[in-house]
């Protein structure tokens, strides 16, 4: 579904990602792991068209994405829940969700989708008239995911959904992500919190200092020491 092929990304003279290739197939949950500064967020930003590519190509459902702007990629079914949640703090929960559906009109299915979100995240229904800024970290993360779902994506990219959340909440969020698979959704999950994610991901990639260090089944990384080896680049899939 998503094919990232030989992508490099530069920030001025600094190279953040070098020749990384990554593939996500229909119905998969793919984990993209790696330490801080590995280039994971840069890669997702590039996939959304927020960062220019220095080299390589990105294809989504067989279509070349390089020519399309961010807005058109969302319309094609590619969605990113950004790092740090980025909930609109001055908008209410309902307004946040409304804006999440910016690519389509407010028809009957729009209201159905809002109800679906409230079903998935009952706490949001309770807080529907509160502003995004007044929610707790976990609630904001749920809102951010729900908001992404409102665009009816076929591929959902989640950037560090567990960032800064209490362990109990993290477990809840991961359970939700796992449930999303039942909704015909393909997921690319970026995490530093590797061990939790590897339990339910199908495949995994490990990025370190801008280079791909591992790609293969997630289960393989669960073996003792394997992840560490992948981080320092000694594990061969």
């Amino acid at each position, binding site marked *: 579904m998503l094919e990232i092929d030989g992508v490099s990304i530069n920030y001025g003279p600094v190279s953040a990602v070098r020749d990384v290739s990554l593939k996500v197939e229909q119905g998969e949950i793919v984990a993209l792991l790696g330490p801080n500064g590995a280039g994971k967020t840069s890669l997702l930003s590039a996939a959304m068209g927020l960062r220019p590519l220095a080299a390589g190509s990105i294809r989504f459902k067989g279509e070349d994405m390089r020519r399309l702007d961010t807005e058109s990629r969302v319309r094609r079914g590619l969605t990113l829940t950004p790092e740090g949640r980025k909930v609109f703090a001055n908008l209410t929960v309902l*307004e946040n969700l409304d804006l999440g559906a910016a690519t389509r009109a407010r028809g009957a299915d729009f209201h159905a989708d809002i109800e679906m979100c409230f079903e998935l995240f009952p706490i949001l229904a309770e807080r529907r008239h509160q502003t995004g800024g007044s929610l707790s970290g976990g609630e904001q993360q749920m809102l951010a995911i729900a908001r992404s779902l409102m665009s009816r994506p076929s591929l959902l990219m989640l950037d560090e959904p567990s960032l800064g959340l209490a362990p109990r909440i993290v477990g809840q969020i991961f359970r939700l992500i796992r449930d999303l698979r039942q909704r015909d959704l393909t997921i690319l999950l970026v995490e530093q919190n590797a061990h939790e994610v590897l339990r339910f991901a199908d495949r995994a990639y490990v990025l370190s200092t801008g280079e791909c260090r591992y790609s293969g089944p997630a289960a393989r990384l669960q073996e003792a020491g394997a992840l560490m080896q992948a981080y320092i680049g000694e594990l061969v899939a």
Partner: protein
Amino acid sequence: MDYLIEQALNGFSIGAQYSLLALGLAIVFSVMGLVNFAHGEFIGVAGYAMFAMAAMGMTDPLLLVVFAMATVTLVALVLERIAFRPVRNAPSTTGLLTAFGVGIILQNLFLLMVSPRPKAVPELSALNQTVDVWGHNFTILQFLEVGVTTVAIAGLVWFLKGTRIGLAMRAAALDFTTVRLMGMRANRVIATAFAISGLLASIAAIFFIARRGAIDPFMGLLPVLKAFVACVLGGFGSLPGAVVGGLLLGFVEVMLIVLLPDKLAGLRDASVFLIVGAILVFRPQGILGRRVELGDKTA
């Protein structure tokens, strides 16, 4: 007492004009961080549009008003496209100076194409007729100013809360990138902000022109400076702040007209700015503005 009521309405109606101008400035600033120094020239555009229509024999006031509003909105959109889009992601100083250049261009276009001297636009003077309400003398214009401004602000509030693009504009004030991640077109959001700012300015412009009955190339300068002052007073970028700042400014101005003897009339504008300076000493963030910390998104 009578006098007080009359002056109060006067303050309201003058303040309403400043509020409309300040709102336009604040909307564009909050959405794209641009300090639109050329905003005052929208008044000139409205004035010269009416003048041109009247010169061609079209003197129906209502038609003139509609034509002026449409022209200003269109000009706002065109300016966004050709002058402000290239500097959209530049530092705010660049945007401010670009706008400053655009203002100079428009002023001199009026000067070049029409005349450096003031021209009469008497078509709206009927609005200055006084009416008697419970023994007080008011002009029709004053009621219109207060009434239309109230309606315009209510409409704006509805737009910002009720429509998708309105939501996007509010969200963009905090985080434009994430608005784009929602699939909202940046160009559409910014163009809408400009259209609204032009529309609001055109309403204010019609009131200005109705009051003065004449236009000149540099007529927009002082009103826009005062609208800036209103924005700063209310807290730059805050929409409620712009309205409150505009009204406050209107009252201060009427108070000064009443209090300052004719001999010191030349100090009216100076006093307005002095009072503003004094307020800013005590509240640098403005009345409704939040305290800005170093490194926050500011102008």
